């Protein structure tokens, strides 16, 4: 028994480990060399009879051979295991359709409303609510539209019977401003999402039951500049891209000055297309600086407080978000529509 024998043994074992094609074969090789009756074990047994001096040096070498082989086996085994699983993967059809859980769906208006609420809440706005049936004081008078004010015509109204009850279905979410300011002192920042009703014939883009979002911010020196900043920030976050906005003069009895907010058309980037009727702009909201008469109506000193109010349609934002061409789908209750969200 000499060095050469051990070297041969080592080479031979190494070769056979390399050649092993699968775990079974590797196992055979392992038994052949490191098993109880394997070649290495046999040499160990033979050593008992060898001279003490030789015994020590050979044992040392044998031990190193043994741990070398153990390591080689381990490496080869890991290698085979990996390739084995790769082999299995080729048996696996990833293109077969997945099993779908029948999930529930939130209404697209709910999804968009939540998104809007989050954006404004992040900017420090509180969410307020109010009743859907209103009396005409909250819906009109308190908003600087006394009885027989011709501007009342801007809001076609569903009235409750009898007409003299002066109860109506709110035509906008602006009454929430009044109700909130009656109970809270400025500074204040609120939004109020909710159902509103318009007495008008319906078509693909007109509904008699709508969802609006009101906004109100009152402090000591809130200006048109500040309003531009807030509405710009909102639109940018909602549409997840840089948008351009412009204000156009308009008229609402409860704001002075009043304006419409246009956003550069997101479909054509302002070049003009069918979405924006070739104007390059989309009308997004009505807004303005709260009229001092409105502040007076809720007992606030208009010399001390000022601010802006705005309102836009959640339906419209939702239609833009999902490219929904027909507003009446929202109330259809049709699950073929609702399950898409």
């Amino acid at each position, binding site marked *: 028994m000499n060095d050469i024998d051990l070297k041969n043994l080592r080479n031979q074992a190494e070769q056979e480990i390399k050649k092993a094609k699968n775990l079974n074969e590797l196992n055979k090789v392992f038994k052949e060399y490191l098993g109880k009756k394997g070649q290495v074990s046999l040499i160990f047994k033979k050593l008992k009879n060898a001279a003490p001096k030789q015994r020590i040096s050979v044992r040392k070498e044998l031990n190193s051979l043994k741990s070398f082989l153990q390591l080689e086996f381990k490496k080869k085994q890991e290698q085979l295991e990996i390739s084995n699983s790769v082999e299995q993967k080729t048996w696996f059809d990833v293109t077969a359709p997945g099993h779908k859980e029948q999930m529930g769906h939130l209404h697209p208006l709910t999804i968009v409303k939540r998104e809007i609420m989050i954006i404004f809440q992040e900017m*420090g706005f509180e969410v307020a609510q109010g009743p859907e049936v209103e009396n005409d004081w909250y819906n009109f008078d308190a908003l600087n539209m006394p009885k027989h004010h011709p*501007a009342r015509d801007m809001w076609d109204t569903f009235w409750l019977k009898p007409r003299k009850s002066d*109860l109506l279905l709110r035509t906008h979410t602006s009454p929430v401003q009044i109700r909130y300011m009656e109970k809270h002192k400025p500074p204040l920042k609120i939004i109020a999402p909710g159902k509103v009703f318009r007495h008008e014939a319906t078509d693909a883009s007109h509904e008699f039951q709508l969802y609006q979002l009101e906004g109100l911010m009152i402090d000591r020196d809130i200006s*048109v500049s500040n309003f531009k900043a807030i509405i*710009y920030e909102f639109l940018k976050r909602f549409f997840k891209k840089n948008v351009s906005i412009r204000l156009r003069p308009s008229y609402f009895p409860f704001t002075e000055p009043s304006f419409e907010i246009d956003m550069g058309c997101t479909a054509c980037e302002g070049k003009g297309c069918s979405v924006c009727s070739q104007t390059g702009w989309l009308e997004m909201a009505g807004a303005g600086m709260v009229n001092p008469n409105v502040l007076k109506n809720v007992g606030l000193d208009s010399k001390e407080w000022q601010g802006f109010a705005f309102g836009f349609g959640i339906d419209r934002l939702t239609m833009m978000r999902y490219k929904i061409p027909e507003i009446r789908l929202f109330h259809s209750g049709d699950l073929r529509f609702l399950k898409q969200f």
Partner: protein
Amino acid sequence: MKFSYNWLQEYLDKELPSAKDLISILSLKSFEVESIKKINKDFVLDIDITSNRVCDCSSHIGIAREMAAIMDYKLRLPDFKIRENSKLLAKDIVSIEVRDKEACPRYSARVITDIKVDDSPDWLKKKLEICGLQSINNVVDIANYVMLETGQPLHIFDLDKLEHKKLIVRFAEKGEKITTLDEQNFKLNESILVIADAKRPVALAGIKGGKGPGVDSQTKTIVLESANFNPVIIRKASQFLKLKTDASWRFEHGIDANLTEPAINRAAKLIQELASGKIAQGIVDFYPEKIKPKKIFLDIDNVEKLLGGRIPLKQIKNILTKLGFKLIASKTVSGKIAVEVPTSRLDISIPEDLIEEIGRIYGYEKIPVAAPKICLIPPEKNMNIFWEEFSKDILQENRFSEVLNYSFISEAQAKTFGYEIDKLLEIENPLSSNQQYLCPSLVPNLMRNVETNFNYFSEFKIFEMGKIFSRATNLRKQKSKPQTVVQGNGLAVIEQRFLSGLIARTKDGNQSFYELKGVIDDLLNKMGITNVWYDEYEPTPEQTKICVWDIGKSAEIKVNDKEVGFLGQISPKILKKLDITGDVVLFDIDFDTLQKLVSEEHEYQLISPYPSAMRDLSILVPKETKVVDVFNVMNRIGGSLVRDIDLFDIYQGDELHGDKKSFAFHIVYQAKDRTLESKEIETIHGKIVKALEQNLEWEVRK
């Protein structure tokens, strides 16, 4: 309102921008232009005059003035000077009597004799046509022309057809009638202002003329009316008669009382020129209280404070002057300018109105964008919205889809569901019979969703969160409940938030009830409400009429002693009436009441650090026995050591006697303060078994 591009040009010293540019300039500074159309060599612009500016902009001069201010042009007004016939005095020919100066603050009239009624010249016909008016004859056309030019509606009477050559402005008497120029008949009442001669109404004041004294080809002498009427009276009359005209539109928005004079002169001059009339001397003018211009002190600092950008003082002054405002130098003190408002600007009454004028002409696009400076107060959480959205999420996780329905029901729906019509809230002016009543429940429209969706799906689960409406009958009692009450005149409405939903299957859904009950348990538990139980549905006499539920298969959902809603099978009668074949199980929860329990009850339950142990128990009971009865015994005996009982099987099979069934429970034992030893557990478990067996019909299987 329709405007002619060429006509506008006549009042300006420099050339207007192209029609296309004009639209965008007007849109950004004044009004939206709805449409533009080329007609021959002219353009017709449909300008959307906002309701506050009808007073000064429902006229070509008005829009031209806007353009002059925007473009910094000069306004060239037409000639209002006339030649009068000094031999005839108007006041000798016609007498005017105004009975109510509130209703008619001014009435100006002129008399023109020797006129020749004929066709209008082409230029006049064309102008009217472009603005959407039909040519009638030269005299009537001139009246319309002057209205489009100045904004003042005019009316013409044939003097010879007026009884006693008299005009009286008065309210109609009940029962009086009038036939208008276009042959419409109206019955009048005391709220309608008319112009009458000595005998009968000859015109609906500010709305339309009567047929009687109308101008015809034989007319020789006319009375020209240029008046000012109370906007509210005209508006009410126009609404009552359902008659809207170019005149009523202008009057109901209010017009400058000082406009009657220039307008009547302008018309007289044109009639003289085009119908060769002679103008009798003088205006017969009823004008007891002359309207004088308002003065407003404008604090220059406030312009910047409200708009947020600094505009040079010189520019501010220029804008105001161009718009027709006068700056009174003598009254201007440092930092404040005194502004005299032209009487045509009825819309301007406070400094903010002036700031709007400055802002829009200066240009909102030039106002810088600046984030507000505010103190950071985190927004308060709206708990109503929080719980609404929270519950929607739970239902979605339970595979329900959200629907949003209209807040109305039809009479047919109300009848199907047994609602008493006179207790519902009716809409005065529904668009169709589908919107006759406010919904007293979300269920009728959810059932409509079932009808729709059974066409495409054999099984689905839907819910809606929304408001239902009812009459408040006893206000004091109602106020104690968590709900919204809105007070009107003699009618108060209660609004309640409801959460309702259903599971619908075209085939028999035996398990639907328990499935839905599990969902409700999950919802309430996740909202932190633990003491939920279900009581047999015992309808009150009133509820019996409203036959939504299949009484034998429905339950009241209760938390402690409060009823929060119902759960159960829909009444087969309703399914039949709606012609639905299938199985529908509903829930209907008063969300206001439920949420109140949440806020009071949502409390963290300590998790015991000590181990729990589970024992199973199976019991044979008569078929009619309710699970809750068994639960009650186990809970009573087990007390605080029973943490949870779970019914995992109900069995009713052949090998059991026909009238028996078996329940199988997992009972989880756990103490909050110590480890329960098995001996102790066996003792309690034994006690429970013993207690159950005290009922002689119950048999615990061992």
